């Protein structure tokens, strides 16, 4: 379970998150919507422990443990995964090598054995196919020369391999056509289980037709301004943010 209590966070000295509360129970999918610049990516980075995103107040508790002082890799090992809004290129490092290193690093941290190379490749092939990606993308350097859609699918592939217990998807739908969107949604839905939860950050209601959320939150001015069921996303699409952002701020 993820519990965020009165979270304040600054970026470069400016306070961006100003008292954010959020509780995600195991098995739940929550959507976070909000205008540009409202702090959605900031929230995802703070959860993942990015340096430069400083928690100045409040707490982040994940499965009973305070995450605030953990390194990004420790949080990853504890099951937190962030699908980046802008995936990063790593020249010269084959995608498959990267995936293998990541999986083994997480396993080592958990005191598990590294996965056998052959077994890994089998699994990688299968997951790649499920996401309608070509094997060729496994040989290419991480995200280098990938189209926008390929990069997003690659994020979902990484998620499928690492099987996180908390997946944070930061606008994974933006820039995707409808087919790609469905594939991404399938990838997220495939991980749905009573133990796993997701935080889906999106601009558009469209994605939520495929990944049906248990709750929808509206983030603005550094706080959750409004929380509702999946119908809130439709309402938001119809009315725009102004109505929601004004009232609680």
């Amino acid at each position: 379970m993820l519990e965020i209590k009165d979270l304040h966070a600054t970026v470069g000295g400016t306070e961006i998150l100003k008292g954010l509360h959020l509780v995600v129970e195991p098995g739940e999918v929550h959507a976070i919507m909000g205008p540009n610049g409202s702090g959605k990516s900031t929230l995802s980075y703070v959860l993942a422990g990015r340096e430069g995103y400083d928690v100045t107040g409040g707490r982040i508790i994940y499965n009973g443990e305070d995450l605030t002082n953990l390194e990004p890799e420790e949080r990853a090992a504890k099951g937190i995964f962030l699908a980046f809004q802008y995936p990063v290129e790593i020249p010269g490092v084959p995608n498959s090598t990267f995936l293998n290193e990541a999986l083994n690093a997480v396993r080592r941290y958990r005191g598990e054995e590294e996965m056998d190379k052959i077994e890994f490749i089998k699994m990688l092939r299968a997951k790649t196919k499920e996401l309608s990606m070509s094997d060729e993308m496994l040989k290419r350097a991480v995200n280098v020369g990938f189209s926008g859609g390929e990069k997003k699918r690659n994020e979902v592939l990484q998620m499928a391999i690492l099987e996180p217990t908390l997946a944070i998807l930061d606008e994974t739908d933006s820039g995707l056509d409808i087919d790609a969107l469905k594939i991404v949604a399938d990838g997220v839905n495939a991980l749905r289980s009573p133990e796993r939860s997701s935080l889906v950050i999106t601009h558009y209601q469209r994605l939520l037709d495929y990944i049906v959320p248990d709750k929808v939150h509206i983030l603005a001015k550094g706080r959750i301004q409004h929380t509702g069921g999946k119908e809130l996303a439709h309402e938001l699409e119809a009315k725009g943010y102004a109505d929601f952002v004004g009232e609680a701020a």
Partner: protein
Amino acid sequence: MPATAETADQVQSIEGEKYKYGFITEIESDMAPKGLSEDIVRFISAKKNEPEWLLDWRLKAYRRWLEMPEPKWAKVDFPPIDYQQYHYYSAPKSQEDGPQSLEDVDPELLATYEKLGIPIREQEMLAGVQNVAVDYVFDSVSVATTFKKKLEAAGVIFCPISEALERCPDLVRKYLGTVVPMADNKHSCLNSAVFTDGSFVYIPPGVKCPMELSTYFRINEQNTGQFERTLIIADKGSYVSYLEGCTAPMRDENQLHAAVVELIALDDAEIKYSTVQNWYPGDADGKGGIYNFVTKRGACRGKNSKISWTQVETGSAITWKYPSCILQGDNSVGEFYSIAITNNAQQADTGTKMIHIGKNTTSRIISKGISAGKSDQTYRGLVKISAKAEGARNYTQCDSLLIGDKCGAHTVPYIESRNKAAIVEHEATTSTISEDQLFYLRQRGIPQEAAVALVVNGFCREVLQQLPMEFAVEAQKLVGISLEGSVG
């Protein structure tokens, strides 16, 4: 603190203690008295029972050396060397009678190489992978050479150069000093006067050497230098791949390593020479470490010949090294693939020279420099195209990667072309490891240091791919280790 700054600090905090090859072998050595003189030159020559002509050659070199100035043009900084402080010959007493059979090698030495991860045994390195024959050079002497019989069956000569003087003196005499003239520079001149073991390779016409050849250099004794000499001759239509590795104990004083390597490729022959240099780099403050002043040069004498240098330079306090190719034969090819990593207070001035003389000669230079800590690194390259080198082409690519903001990287490419039709291309980039990259990798569970290693390995990929498969994995690890703070 941004990740890059932290990485830089972490990298800077690496101490010499992390160097895992830094142990000393307790073994009784037979040493020349300290210092350098004509008597010492005679002492070394006598130790090796050398022919008269070689002693004369050494003495001539010694006399030239006395008069030669130190090369001053490299961007490295160190106090004047006191040449009288070194022992110019040191050999384990147990090995006095020269290389013995593998069974007779001193157990201390066997244990040393076991610990270094290159046991003296004739075994497959990896299941199914081609064997590697190794010449083990300890201070001034070769203590063992493996797979001699198998190589002899193919007509290949692979032995310490002192042994080659007995087995095939004419070949040695014909080629020694013909690629790197005795007085090429002060360091090569010193080597010519006092050189001790190093490997000799001869591949007969039409023979593809049946296995990788390798020499492993180890400096052990205090106040010694290592001055090995390597000579590789690939006769017409032959092929050989050779790899050199090196380590030394951690010592507070600077030890001198002034080697000379000469390669000769005749018609249609190919030599692939790879180096994984991991001499002790000194501690974090720059105390101790090897001065690696090496002259390596290959001559593509024959038509369609090819010489390819691949180097992974991670060690030494100071590296001064420019493996070069003289492309004499028409259609000959020279290649230089380099990874140089400097950390802490290390200094490296390294690069290559490609001298195009024959027609349609081509050369390719790929240099990857990684600077961390407060180290300083220079790529220095020369592409020279003579008037007669019709159709000559060169492609040069120099990429620098900086970790932190206290290190330096410099690129000094010289181009001298006397042929208007020659095509010379040069590309250079400088980049840093981005905080975005590190966070991305760490978010996937890869710890900071491993993330740095992964990015750097990606940066070096083109060069790592040139290494023989047997060594590529080791080299990748080394790339990581030389930049890590915790692995040791």
